[in-house]
Structure formats: C-alpha cells, structure tokens
C-alpha cells in the first residue's frame, strides 16, 4: 500500500465517524423537538379548550354546579392567601438557614448532617409533606384544614429550594468583600447584613420566585391535608372596619386553591367541566410561567451585570 492509499483509507474512516457525529446531532435536535412539541401541544390544547371560558366573570364567580356559570374566585383568593403564609414562613427560615450554613457553620459532623439532610429533604416526594402536615399541623397542633396548615406545608416543601439558592448566591461573593469588611472592624453579622445579603439579593430572589412558582402548582400535599374542593365563599377579610383594623381570622378559614379547583373539574365526567379545567389550567400555567420567566430573566441580568 503506498502513501495515498493509506491517506485515503484514513480519510474514509474519519468520514465514517463524522457521519456518526452528524447522525447524533440530528437525534439531539429531534429529542429537543419532542420536548418543545409537547409543550406546544399542551399549551395549544388548553388554549383551544379554555380560551372561550376565560372572561371577567370566570375570575369573579364561585364554583357552581352549572359549568357555564362556574368560576375561580375562591380558588385564586385561596392561592394568594396560602402563598402569603408560605412566603412569610419559607423566606426568613430558608435565608437564615442558608446564611448559617454558608457563613457561620463550623466544619464538624453536625454541619455535615445538616447539609446531607437538606439534600435529602429536596428528594422527599411532595405528598409525604402532605402526610406530615396532616398528622402534625391538622391534628397534633389542631390547626385544622385551614389556610395556615396548607401554607406551612408548602413552606416546608420549598424550604430546600430557598436554602440552596441562598447558599449559591452567597458563595459566589468573593472572599475579598468579607475581608474588607472585617478589616474595617465589622462583626460577622454586620458583614452579612450590610454586604453579603445585599450583593446576593438578586440570586436569593430568583430562588424564592422559583420556589413559590413550584408551591403555586403543588396539588398533592394540599389534597392530603383535606382541602375542600367546593368552596363557594371567601375567607374573612384581613382588613376589618373597627379597631384594630387587621384580622387574622382568615388563617383558620377553610379554602381551596387553583390546582385543586382544576383537579376537581378534570375528574368530572361532563365535558363542560373539563373546559373549565382547561381555563383554570391556562391561568395557572400563565402564573407559573410568568414567575419562572421572571426568575430566568433576573438570573440572566445578574450574570451580565455583576463582574467581581
């Protein structure tokens, strides 16, 4: 075999392997397309079924036996109130835990247990949190099947998300910032409060939004608590006429939330109710997509703007 033959043989082999490269690239694009097409089909299906039902009345009416006049008023009010409880609980606890693990925790076995535990909590199925809430909040602590129980259950569920986001955001701040603060005589807390938290706020906010978006769509834990699916009244208003103008009675009120309302309509055999489910699903998807989109945008801006 002379030199040109050898070269041609090599070329042939490389060409053969490059064909595999090309084939795989096509496969990759097809796989990506399957995911994208599913999303489009899902959105289109809901848009076609649900769009005609979406009107002002749909947002301002209670659920009803007659599908044409049923609406999601009690559901979106319930979702809003539950999210208030969830955010008020998960944000301080999650950020506090994240700050502790990243800045304060000594290197010992207990810290290691804490870290492994947070990872494990993130892997616990959401319905298990529902069982915990049913046993602990609803019966043991006697909070009942209330907005408070549901909000706390979802707060526990998204706690790992907030903790991990806080840790990552704080970790990305260079050590020089801390050293600078300490050199000026700042205490640890002054360093954290005046420097680390403000600089990592965008990252923490991203984590909080993603966590809350997940909580809005969670159905299983709330069903497990025993939320009613048919609620034709609103919880008591948080603002009252007389003194002291603020009431916390709504915390103990029975409630329903968006995903439960949707689940209830989906599981009915009549087609008219399934159209309602599509409309409720559309509202729900737009809510979570907006929140997730906001988080992605925040992260994108952060990556562009911050250069240490």
């Amino acid at each position, binding site marked *: 075999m002379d030199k040109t033959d050898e070269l041609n043989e090599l070329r042939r082999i*490389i060409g053969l392997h490059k064909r*595999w*490269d090309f084939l*795989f690239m096509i*496969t*990759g694009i097809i*796989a*990506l397309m399957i*995911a994208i097409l599913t*999303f489009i*089909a*899902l959105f289109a299906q*809901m848009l076609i079924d649900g769009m005609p039902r979406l009107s002002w009345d749909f947002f301002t009416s209670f659920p009803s036996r007659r599908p044409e006049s049923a609406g999601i008023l009690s559901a979106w009010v319930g979702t809003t109130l539950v999210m208030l409880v969830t955010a008020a609980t998960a944000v*301080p*606890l*999650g950020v*506090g*835990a994240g*700050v502790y693990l990243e800045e304060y925790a000594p290197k010992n076995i207990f810290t290691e*247990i*804490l870290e492994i*535990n947070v990872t*494990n909590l993130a*892997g*616990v*199925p*959401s*319905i*298990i*949190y529902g*069982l*915990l809430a049913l*046993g602990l909040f609803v019966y043991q602590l006697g909070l009942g099947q209330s907005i408070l129980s549901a909000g706390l259950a979802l707060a526990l569920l998204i*706690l790992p998300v907030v903790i991990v986001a806080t840790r990552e955001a704080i970790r990305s701040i260079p050590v020089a910032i801390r050293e600078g603060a300490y050199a000026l005589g700042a205490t*640890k*807390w002054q360093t954290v409060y005046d420097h680390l938290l403000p600089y990592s706020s965008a990252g923490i906010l991203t984590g909080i939004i*993603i966590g809350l*978006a*997940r909580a*809005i*769509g*969670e*159905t*299983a834990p709330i*069903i*497990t608590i*025993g939320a009613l699916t048919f609620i034709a009244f609103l919880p008591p208003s948080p603002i009252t006429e007389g003194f002291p103008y603020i009431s916390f009675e709504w915390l103990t009120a029975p409630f329903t939330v968006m*995903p439960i309302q*949707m*689940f209830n309509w*989906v599981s009915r055999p009549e087609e008219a109710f*399934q159209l309602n489910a*599509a409309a409720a699903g559309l509202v729900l*998807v737009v809510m*979570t*997509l907006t*929140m*997730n989109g906001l988080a*992605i945008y925040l992260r*994108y801006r952060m990556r562009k703007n911050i250069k240490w």
Partner: protein
Amino acid sequence: MSDKLDKNKNYAGRLGYSYRRNLRERLIESVLFLSAALSVVIMLSIVVMLVKESFVFFQHVSLWDFLTDTQWTPLFDDAHYGILPLVAGTVVSSTVALLVALPLGTIIAIYLSEFAPFSVREIAKPFLELLGGIPTVVYGYFALLFVTPLLQMIFPTLPGFSLLSAGLVMGIMIIPYVSSMTEDAMRAVPMHLREGSYAMGATRFQTAIRVVMPAAFSGIAAAYILGISRAVGETMVVAIAAGMQPNLTWNPMEPAATITAYIVQVSLGDLPHGSIGYQTIFAAGLTLLLMTLVFNIIGHVLRKRYREIY
C-alpha cells in the same frame, strides 16, 4: 499623630471588647442556627409521624399480609391490606416514565453540552426550565385529554385510564430535570480532557461517549437517581390519568393505582382521624418514603465511589 489620637479618648472603648455587641452577635448566630437545624427537625418529624401511624396500622395487619397479599381493599367490608398492587402500579408507571426520560434527557444533555452552538443552548436551557416549572396537575390534564385519545388512535383497545399514558407524560415531565443535571455534570468536565481526545483524532461523538460521559459519571448517576425518585413520588399525573383502582398488573395498557394515587383517593374522601383507613395512607406513605430513600442512598454511594476529582 499622637495629638489626633488623644482627642478621641473613647477610641479604645469603641474598638475593644464590647459586651453588648458580642451578645447581639451570639443571639443572631443562635437564631440562624435554629433555622438551619429546623431542617433536621422536619426530617425527623416526617419519619416519626409516618412510623407512629404505621405502627398502629401494623398492630391490625401483619407485616406478612401487607407484603404478600395481592389485594388492596382497605375501605371495603372484605378488607385486604396487600401493598403489592400499589407497588406494581408505581413500578410500571415509573418504568414507562424512565424509558422516556432517561434516554431523551441524556441525548438532549449530550447535544446541548457537546454539540449545540452557543445560541441554541442559550434558548433551549431556559425553555427546558420553563417546561419543568409547569404544575403537575396541568400535565395530568394533558395526559387524560390529549395523550390518551392520541394513543387510542394507535391502540384502539386502550382504556380511558391507563398507566401507559400517565407514564409517557410523566417521562416528558421529568426530561428537564434529567437533562439539566446531566448537562451540568458534563460541562463540569475540564476542557483539557476533550482537547486531549480531539488531538488523538476522535470525533465529537466519540469524545462525548468515551471521554466526557465516563468522566461525568457520578453527576449523571445523581441525575438519573433524581429522575427515578421524581417518577416514584409523582402524584397528580397518575391520579388523574391512570385511574385510582388498585389493580395488580404489570401491563402498562391497564388502569391501576399507584401508592401516591391511593393516598390522594383516600384524602379526597372524608376519613375520620384515627380510623384504619386513615392509618393506611401513612403506611403507604412510609413504603413510598423507604423506596425513595433506597434510591437516594444508592445515588449517594455511586457519587462517592465514582467521583472524579480534577
């Protein structure tokens, strides 16, 4: 210089040891520590709660019956407490889901990390993330009202509720989790390994399969394990699209209940606190927790054993 210092007579007091300042620091540290320690409390209370209620349950029903009886009818007069049908439903639906999610997720990850141009990656990654953020109840609706009718065109005998359509949709739902974690693991492999491979004349595909994937094995294993525990613990898709009738079958074309779907079904009804029906959902929950725990431990071991450090 010394004149200036003398004017500020109080400087030693301000910079020196301050009792109040120290106390505040300690106080804040303990508050932060408590919020971190709460995660351990949560984990412990999950275990205690499930074990406590299951303990009462197992005084009624022997563990042997629980594991070997082939019927699960706790709410009927002729009550049977065999977890097997629920476990079978969970295994079948998860298997279908993983057959979709693991290959597709891996292919997407390899494509995005090794092949795709920068602009495609910048668009595809956030898009996949959005897909992962859609509520599961919406996926359930999609499985029941879009995928099942579609599958019925191909398999006319498919019933209205089936593990197959629930599993397929669950698989697509899990793709973003698998692909984003796998891709992160692959991109963490240092560039010089790839450059070495290219220098030897390997193509992109060869490099991806024989160099990058083995190097990222521990991360990819973690991604797969996460996908598995997601599939096992997924609730709403199976509750809506697979029916809620316990049915001991390994055939994905049949309707059946999973462990999670059973818990939902019981919770929808009005069960008195402390009844045997109430305890069954905790026993089912404990089974589910143990299943996911086993996978988490396997994942932990794999990560430890195969971790590559560069």
